[in-house]
């Protein structure tokens, strides 16, 4: 799909919006919870909230949303105690459809002929793929490339077990 200038402008505008996709989003509490002064469980409680309390999201910080109640009271709630109100989101869906219509590529390439089962079984996991999967090899990243890309961000590894 060739992107025209007006569309490119639209994309930039939408991108600016998307970076705060949930700002001013209507939401509600999924359970009884405490509205807190700062984003921490040990922070002092501002107010006890029942389940299904309507509110507006202001911003997110880690696992916390800063929210505002209808009476103007602000505070922080655990992200997991909040559900976004049903929204039309039609604009974004349309954007998704639009960009999803990028001209279709044919997924398969030329067949390289009969490849016997034995030959495939002998080949290791990183060797050549069946013909219909060969396009995947074009985009494949190795560990070194992935590490370099992560370092650009920068992303820092953490040593963590799974929870018991």
């Amino acid at each position, binding site marked *: 799909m060739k992107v025209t200038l007006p569309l490119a402008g639209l*994309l*930039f505008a*939408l*991108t600016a919006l*998307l970076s705060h*996709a949930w700002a001013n*989003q209507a939401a509600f509490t*999924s359970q009884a919870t405490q509205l807190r002064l700062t984003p921490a*469980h040990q922070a002092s409680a501002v107010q006890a909230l029942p389940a299904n309390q309507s509110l507006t999201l202001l911003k997110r910080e880690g*696992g916390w949303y800063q929210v505002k109640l209808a009476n103007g009271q602000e505070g922080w709630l655990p*992200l*997991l105690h909040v*559900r*976004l*109100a*049903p929204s039309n*989101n*039609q604009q*974004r*869906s349309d954007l*998704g*459809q639009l*960009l*999803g*219509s*990028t001209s*279709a*590529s*044919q997924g398969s390439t030329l*067949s390289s002929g*009969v*490849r016997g*089962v034995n030959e*495939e*079984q002998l080949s290791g*996991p*990183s060797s050549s793929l*069946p*013909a*219909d*999967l060969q396009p*995947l*090899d074009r*985009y*494949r*990243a190795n560990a070194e*490339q*992935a*590490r370099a*890309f*992560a370092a650009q*961000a920068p*992303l820092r*590894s*953490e*040593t*963590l077990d*799974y*929870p*018991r």
Partner: protein
Amino acid sequence: MSRHYWPRALLLLSLGLFTGCQGVEGLSIQGVDLGNLVSAGRNLGNLGAKDLDEEQQIGQGATSVLLEKAPLLADQRIQRYVNLVGVWIALHSERPELAWRFAVLDSPSVGAYAAPGGYIVITNGLLQRLNSEAELAGVLAHEIAHVVQKHHLTALQQQAQSGLLSDLALLAAQASQVSRQGGMSSKDTAMGERFKQSVSDLYSRGLQRSDEYEADTMGVVLARRAGYDAYGLASVLQLMSSERADTPALVSFLKVHPNLGDRLQALEKTYQYLDKQAPNSGATLAERYQGYVLLP
């Protein structure tokens, strides 16, 4: 010829976010035994070369089936980006040595799928709904966890046993050949089609609910290990639960995923654990994501 075999309904299946999860009726397991996760990686050490080859074969066959749903997105930059992010996360898993490959399908539907051996497929429709690399990481890490735990491999093997399909890897190879060329004997063709049907049944029915909860928990930890904001996956689940149920791309997703709220609730213990163990918030990388995925 293989395409005629597919019922139209299957072609329309978006299979659902996160590997056609759930949809198994009668299963009401709401929690996940986190104790199992600790020993999860231990079973993987004794994997023989033959087993690995078979897993690859089955994974390739299953991926061929997934790639029949839609063409690959013709955008090298996005494909490459998803592979770089995906491999980085996979390096933090218990199976870093697999030949991980990630593919973006040119489909407006919302879906992400894992296949044995390290193949992960995600739709452009889902990519376009996400806001940040941390959210993408949450989705990919969930799928990577399915591969690490061999959820699909085990499910396919169980299906094969009940259907007396003794050599699943051989069937996968037959299926692959059916896709590639004609001129096979009708017996081989029938075997290949049975494999495809088996794969299709699994992805449309979904995994056991407990597998999904396990992949959620492991995925959140994997994303955090890789340095991302751990709340990416929770963010995506929240986002999905707020979309209109009649959004075309989401209809089938919501049909097979009635319990996004349950999944969020089930993640609470994991996030409490992570808040303690890795109190620094990880990277969100919204700008990098938008630069690669949303801007041409």
